[in-house]
């Protein structure tokens, strides 16, 4: 956070300033929607390694970071990209080949953990996962936890309801707060100070943003001064949480950005095919990420014509009748 009036910067600077090797990162979005892909690709391009990633169901972004060799450990609820990859492909491979450490939670638990971080409390309770292996199986050992400063000693705990059977509840699971070193989100509109306006579902972006020590925002539109202060009921994240704001049209591409563009089914299908093969995936990294200067490079590679096909219908907010087979 800072209270500066102008936090606009470029993506290379923002990533190199805040995303340090080994740091604890979270990214916004959900499966194939509003993932901060420009920022994800920039992290891969800068070859930042050893990241500890917190995710609920941030599909495509998670898989690309893993495939890009940036991730050492992962706390996650769901790694899938809808119809394009029921299990994220590079994730699956990396876990099966033990290239990354992974620890499982549920979506609600991960969201509560970000919320606890945002609220400044060490934990939140839920009844979810009682009786399940999410409680019994820890991905990170006690030893690793104790040796890693940013991790709590316990994955989660089951405790008795301190108010007897109030709310017909005898037990709860308490999940520990997360305060990521950096959260990356992509939003429809932000202003120079970092006030954010998300359109459509917010997923867990608001909690992830407020829980973070540093918040990097990429946006489709950057607004001068007071534009977003008019009708501020629509702003979900106030500027006090923001560190850097970067204007990147199509910054969520190839995932969707409601009311701006849809996901690109062809890109996601091609990605899935290439991710399935190590050689092809190596070529993918070279051609689509390392061989390009920046996100603009990717957009040029894909071409205006493709981007036109995914342009959002102003009525529905997605690309109606897009060929998604």
């Amino acid at each position: 956070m800072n209270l500066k009036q102008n936090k606009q910067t470029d993506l290379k600077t923002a990533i190199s300033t805040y995303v340090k090797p080994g740091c604890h990162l979270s990214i916004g979005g959900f499966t194939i929607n509003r993932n901060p892909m420009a920022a994800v690709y920039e992290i891969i391009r800068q070859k930042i390694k050893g990241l500890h990633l917190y995710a609920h169901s941030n599909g495509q972004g998670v898989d690309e970071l893993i495939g890009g060799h940036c991730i050492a450990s992962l706390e996650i609820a769901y790694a899938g990209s809808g119809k394009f990859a029921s299990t994220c492909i590079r994730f699956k491979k990396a876990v099966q080949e033990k290239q990354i450490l992974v620890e499982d939670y549920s979506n609600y638990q991960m969201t509560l953990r970000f919320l606890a971080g945002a609220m400044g409390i060490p934990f939140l309770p839920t009844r979810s996962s009682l009786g399940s292996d999410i409680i019994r199986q820890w991905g990170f050992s006690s030893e690793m936890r104790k040796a890693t400063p940013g991790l709590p000693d316990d994955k989660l705990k089951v405790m008795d309801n301190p108010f007897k059977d109030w709310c017909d509840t005898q037990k709860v699971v308490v999940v520990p707060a997360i305060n990521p070193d950096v959260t990356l989100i992509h939003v429809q509109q932000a202003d120079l100070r970092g006030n954010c306006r998300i359109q459509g579902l917010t997923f867990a972006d608001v909690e992830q943003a407020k829980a973070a020590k540093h918040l990097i925002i990429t946006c489709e539109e950057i607004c001068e001064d007071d534009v977003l202060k008019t009708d501020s009921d629509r702003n979900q994240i106030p500027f006090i949480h923001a560190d850097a704001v970067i204007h990147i049209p199509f910054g969520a591409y190839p995932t969707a950005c409601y009311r701006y563009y849809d996901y690109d089914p062809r890109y996601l299908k091609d990605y899935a095919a290439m991710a399935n093969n190590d050689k092809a995936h190596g070529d993918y990294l070279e051609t689509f990420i390392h061989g390009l200067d920046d996100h603009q490079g990717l957009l040029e590679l894909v071409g205006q014509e493709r981007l036109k096909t995914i342009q959002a219908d102003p009525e529905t907010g997605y690309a109606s009748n897009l060929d998604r087979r």
Partner: protein
Amino acid sequence: MDYTLKEMMTIIAAREIRNDDIVFCGTGISMLAAMAAKNINAPESVIFFETGALDSRLEELPLAVGDSRVMYKTSANGGLLDSFAAMQNPVTGRHVIGILGAAQIDKFGNLNSTVIGDYHSPEIRFSGSGGGCDVASFVPRSIIFMQHEKRKFVNRLDYLTSPGYIDGKGGRKKAGLPDGGPIMVITNLAVMRFDETTKEMYLSGVYPGITPERVLMNMEIEVDISRVKEEIPPSEKELRLLREKCDHQRLIL
């Protein structure tokens, strides 16, 4: 009128949905079942996604619960906190019916969608819980879609991702969970339900042309087949509404 297996499965699930249900949907066939119910037998039922979309107007079939198509003309566009809170909420949550899938299921309706093999050295890694464990923990009724294969109906799950009846009658209460659990399992061969007393799975219906023996051959677990009936195929009206209103782009069917 000809119908496919997927259509049969979808319609069987849809028939279970009531007018005062809030339907928690995943992607694929579960979303289709919810849309079918709304268009056929439960017009006032409410479609609801873990991403925070409530009562979406689904003009096109979403390919993920995070698809922008779930955001159009909702009653509210919230986030994950809103959706799961509504399921855990003692008032609204009691109206939610969940539709889930998994890689493995045991006789008490517990689900695995995390790993095959050891958790730390898995042979196969799946997506993980997502909201599945949350839904299974919170809601009073759920429907489970499965492929009917021996390695999927197992005596012991490799990982218990989403609680069903845990170890049978009283298992949920002992674990600290609210009342609930799966009401049925719909597969490509048959329909299983759960005994009221033991909470064990039994074969309640087979599709035309499928014998109970064939069903058993495709399960590691043994289930009671004494109560089995033949399932009623989708009617012409059901099929028409399903095809025209729910998946006219043929993305799932």
